[in-house]
């Protein structure tokens, strides 16, 4: 254990190492001077600088939850082919940065040998942005890593090929907190609770602040009460929409419920400002059962949506752009997903989602 002295003497507030120390010579030379890029094949692109220099990138998929063994492995590959320089992407892929094009094929061969997929660049499905799930979070309604694995197994060919109309970004979040960008993804898989929190009236007064617990509810479903002379809270079950926010604030209100927790599917969000404005993801399927280890209902629902998108969307048309072109009614018709009252918004901005026009297809 660290001694008092060690603790006293250690440096604080030093921040991360300066990034410059991690840039390969080609990047340092051409920093800010890149002219254009070309995508050469799945997972491989080259950036050309105004100096004439070129930098090749090979992108490899990672399960994100990785062991130090895995890290050491990719370090070895980086040493072998890139003088030890590598980076990660904002979607948790690994990027090998190559100064020489000759290294591309051998690197890919090595990666394949290790079972590490190469792809995710251009018009493909990139890695799934995801969260902790049962691996590490108390709040989770499902597992994130497992869902990612089974969905990526299903969609593998769209990572290793560029056969999509446009980029397709999938995200998984294990509860409504939505760590990540689930709320703005082409497809989002979201863990949901579906029953109200259960209140531990014994523990609650001891470990929770009543006013902040009451205030935590977005829908004013929590009221302070007295139980056997002790302060506690009660939940108006008709107003509860299972967001779990009270549980975040007060551990004595657990909401996990194996029988009813599950997964919802959302579609059509995006982040980029390209062509259309950034969009929120919208509800496609309100509930699918938690069926680990391989969630067959989820994978087949996703596959159905992806297949239809691939078949029907135009080039460069993101999922949401495609759906808006064909219209939501058509999306439900094509996918065979039933439109229910759950699909009709009833939160804050609900009123502005109703159809206030006679403009309708069909």
């Amino acid at each position, binding site marked *: 254990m660290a001694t008092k002295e060690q603790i006293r003497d250690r440096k604080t507030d030093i921040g991360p190492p300066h990034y410059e120390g991690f840039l390969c010579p080609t990047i340092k030379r051409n920093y800010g001077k890149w002219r254009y890029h070309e995508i050469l094949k799945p997972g491989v692109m080259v950036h050309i600088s105004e100096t004439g220099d070129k930098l090749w990138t090979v992108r490899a998929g990672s399960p994100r939850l990785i062991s130090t063994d895995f890290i050491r492995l990719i370090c070895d590959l980086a040493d072998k082919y890139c003088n030890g320089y590598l*980076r990660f992407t904002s979607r948790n892929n690994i990027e090998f940065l190559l100064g020489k094009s000759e290294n591309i094929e051998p690197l890919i061969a090595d990666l394949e040998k290790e079972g590490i997929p190469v792809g995710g660049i251009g018009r493909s499905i990139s890695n799934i942005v995801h969260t902790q799930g049962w691996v590490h979070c108390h709040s989770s309604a499902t597992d994130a890593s497992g869902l990612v694995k089974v969905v990526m197994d299903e969609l593998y060919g769209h990572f290793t090929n560029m056969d999509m109309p446009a980029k397709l970004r999938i995200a998984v979040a294990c509860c409504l907190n939505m760590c990540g960008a689930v709320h703005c993804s082409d497809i989002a898989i979201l863990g949901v609770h579906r029953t109200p929190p259960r209140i531990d009236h014994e523990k609650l007064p001891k470990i929770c602040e009543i006013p902040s617990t009451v205030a935590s509810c*977005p829908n004013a479903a929590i009221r302070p009460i007295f139980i056997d002379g002790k302060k506690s809270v009660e939940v108006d079950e008709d107003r509860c929409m299972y967001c779990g926010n009270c549980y975040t604030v007060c551990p004595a209100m657990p909401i996990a419920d194996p029988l009813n927790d599950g997964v919802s599917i959302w579609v059509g969000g995006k982040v980029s400002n390209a062509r259309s404005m950034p969009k929120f993801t919208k509800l496609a399927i309100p509930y699918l059962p938690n069926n680990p280890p391989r969630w067959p209902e989820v994978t087949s629902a996703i596959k159905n949506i992806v297949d239809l998108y691939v078949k029907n969307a135009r080039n460069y048309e993101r999922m949401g752009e495609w759906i808006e072109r064909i219209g939501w009614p058509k999306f439900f018709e094509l996918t065979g997903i039933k439109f229910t009252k759950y699909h009709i918004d009833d939160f804050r901005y609900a009123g502005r989602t109703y159809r206030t026009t006679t403009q309708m297809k069909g």
Partner: protein
Amino acid sequence: METPLLDELEKGPWSSFVSEIKKAAKKSKKAEGLLGQLELSYKEKKTHWKHGGIVGVKGYGGGVIGRFSDVGEQFPGAAQFHTIRVNQPSGWFYTSDALRKLCDIWDKYGSGLTNMHGSTGDTVFLGASTDDLEDIFCELSAASWDLGGSGGDARTPSCCVGPARCEFACYDTLALTYDITMTYQDELHRPLFPYKWKFKMAGCPNDCVASIARSDFSVIGTWRGEIQINQDAVAEYAEKGLDIKFEVVRRCPSKAIKWDGVKLTINNSECVKCMHCINVMPKALRQGEDKGAAILVGSKAPIVQGALLSSVIIPFMKIEPPYDELKALIRKIWDFWDENGVARERIGELIQRVGLGNFLETIGIEPSAQMVIQPRDNPYIFYEEYYESE
């Protein structure tokens, strides 16, 4: 240990996190504990992590997420399984040496399991024990690493690859991220805000770091002036089979492009700088030369008042060191938030509550029509000036 359910997740072509846990479990009791507990979760369809628990390192309010198992007796390795958020380098660039050093530290004390990276951007160590926290931090610090944010503080800023490898970067995302991270070390390590605060820096409107969806303060590169056209390169794309009419002209949201089969022209005053044409023909088109960024604030996930996207408060700002203008703005917003925000209220929610107009007025920004999609459509105007009768 038998893990029949998890074993199913070693099948199929995509790399398996279960295999990763197993690899770690070979060397670490902690990872072994996790494996067992996770199998149980898969069987029972529920999490076995307890809610929170305050742990940390001395002098820091954030950077460590306490995590305790509710089946710690059954799986002692998982009993204490805290997260350490290590502040990643700008743009997630590493050398193999630096990474190996991190692995060494982590193998020594932790589970050997990491997230490269967390959704906020940190290099995430999963599975530390309370007693080891100070040691780990001492070693990290000695190796020039520091912790990231958690709780009601400025979270670890992150950015896209930017000028390091992207021709589209309108400002130096890595430099700004580093500078901001260093400037606000105190705000990052000692939670004093009403709630979390996230910075994200994207070099251009493609927003490869999803800043518009998940950062309280989004700096998104953009430009003014004319898109530069290399007509020869346009012709080259056309020859190679790009259907410019269909894929570029028709997809321009502001219908600003003309293509007569020989010459491409852009009506730059109509262009909304969406990037599409440039994305499709990067060799032929370059952004205007007057580069900078738009500043947007307030995006977040749904909790509590609903998800928000960031909204424009500065349509265009030059982003150059020492970033004084930007930092003055940040300070003013923080002051505003400090003064007006209630507990667990993100800046975006606060702005919704008090109104963007009042927010702008308080922080001293002139309102402009660029900040809205449309002016108000309801007549409930809070008129502030009026005549007094004598």
